[in-house]
């Protein structure tokens, strides 16, 4: 590869990170400046939160179920099938609840944001909005970031609960375990750092999903083909970043709390 190509690619990469950081910073700063688009936040919360509820419930339920199914047989080999509930709750609350919910919401909403804002970009609707005296970052980006962070937090809690219920369904109805014992072990060993870890992650993941979705939407060029490209990139980049940040946050919190 010629040196000039590497040079140009590096500059493009730095410029993209710079644009992403500026967009995110402006969107957050806009939260504290008038006009405040409260109704847009509620509309987005409905679209992102309520709209994602069915896929989050289904994913959470079956993930909890399959966790119970797989772990029970392994645990039984050590005579520890009784702690199936504990394993399901630990896995769901600390890892799978936040990560799987975020990946589902990313697939549904980061793509939605990128395609919606991208279409507005290529049809000059964003320019028209600016020409009509409205800041598109304030009107379009800020409500999406706020709504995604808030709703992902609650969706993760729902996913955790439904996952534990799914695990219970499999453990009790299919594996013949005692329901009281299952639920007792799910919360008995849970401690504050476990819950904190599970609740901090969706805040970061929500920020990643919305800012990446909006960034790719707002930087769309090249007509309908460009919209398609932005949509794909938004999902891929946000999914990879979610998994990467999951590792970083987990390592940090384990370092702080020791578990």
């Amino acid at each position: 590869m010629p040196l000039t190509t590497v040079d140009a690619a590096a500059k493009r990469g730095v410029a993209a990170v710079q644009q992403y950081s500026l967009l995110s910073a402006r969107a957050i700063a806009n939260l504290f400046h008038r006009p405040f688009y409260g109704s847009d936040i509620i509309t987005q919360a409905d679209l992102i939160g309520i709209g994602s509820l069915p896929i989050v419930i289904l994913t959470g339920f079956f993930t909890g179920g399959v966790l119970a199914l797989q772990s029970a047989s392994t645990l039984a080999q050590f005579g520890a099938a009784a702690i199936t509930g504990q394993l399901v709750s630990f896995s769901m609350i600390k890892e799978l609840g936040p990560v799987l919910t975020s990946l589902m919401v990313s697939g549904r909403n980061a793509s939605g944001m990128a395609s919606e804002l991208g279409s507005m970009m290529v049809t000059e609707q964003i320019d028209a909005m600016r020409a009509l005296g409205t800041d598109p970052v304030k009107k379009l980006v800020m409500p999406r970031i706020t709504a995604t962070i808030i709703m992902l937090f609650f969706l993760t809690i729902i996913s955790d609960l439904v996952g534990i219920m799914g695990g219970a369904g499999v453990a009790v109805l299919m594996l013949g375990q005692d329901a009281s014992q299952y639920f007792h072990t799910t919360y008995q060993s849970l401690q504050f750092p476990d819950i904190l870890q599970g609740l901090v992650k969706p805040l970061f993941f929500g920020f990643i999903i919305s800012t990446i979705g909006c960034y790719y939407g707002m930087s769309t060029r090249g007509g309908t083909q460009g919209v398609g490209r932005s949509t794909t990139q938004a999902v891929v980049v946000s999914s990879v970043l979610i998994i990467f940040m999951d590792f970083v946050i987990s390592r940090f919190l384990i370092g702080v709390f020791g578990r």
Partner: protein
Amino acid sequence: MTATALETNIPESQVHPDAPAVRFEDVSIGFEEKDVLEQVSFEVKRGEMRILLGPAGVGKSVLLKLADGLFKPDSGRIFVFGFEVSAMPEEELFRLRESIGMVFQESALFDSLTVRDNVGYRLIQEHVLDDEIDRRVSEALRFVELEHTMAKFPSELSGGMRRRVAIARAIITKPELILYDSPTGGLDPITSTTIIDLIIKQRDVSKTSSLLVTHRLQDAFMLATHRFNKETGQIAELPDKQTDPSTSFLVLHQGRLAFDGSTHDLVHSDDDFLKQYLA
């Protein structure tokens, strides 16, 4: 810039009443290391219409977006109503844009909003009362003869109707300057004439300053040779091959201004490019 304007609540367009509506001083801009405009300088006086001609891809739309502050030039200065838009932060530009209407090339209507909400967008954002919005939207749509489309969505309208709705959206706040980006581009000749009629009517009734981009010579010369007759309510050709004194031309060629002058000077120019372009 707006300290005075904010304190006195004077529209931005009236803060510097003697300043021209638009002034470009040696403006250059490029994208991805390709120069689009080089050292462009011209002026649009108050109440004047300037028609910007040039081949496709020469930078006409970019120039118009520069005038509205949607792009920042690489070098040079741009003034609108005496304010340097090339150096203003976006927050201050929003206030200045209250005095500027813009009609985009492909209308750029918000496809998820009805015609009523598109035309009244600015009023809705300013929390104007619903009755007042309805009244002013009706008035603007009546001007473009589309009052019956209030509840429709842009996707339900034809290309020409969308362009007329875009004009209604641009004029609803009675701006002092209107920027038209190829308002007849991609339209059939009859619909184009309807749009040009509306622009002539707007120019002659409101005496608004305007900068119009087009690559259709027939539309440009119709604007220069016709006027709105207030008595008959019709568009009529000026007698004795006269041209409208407030309408003049700019021609862009290879990123530079190849012509800046009246209709007469343009038609009688000896420049080879202009002769070929007008032929």
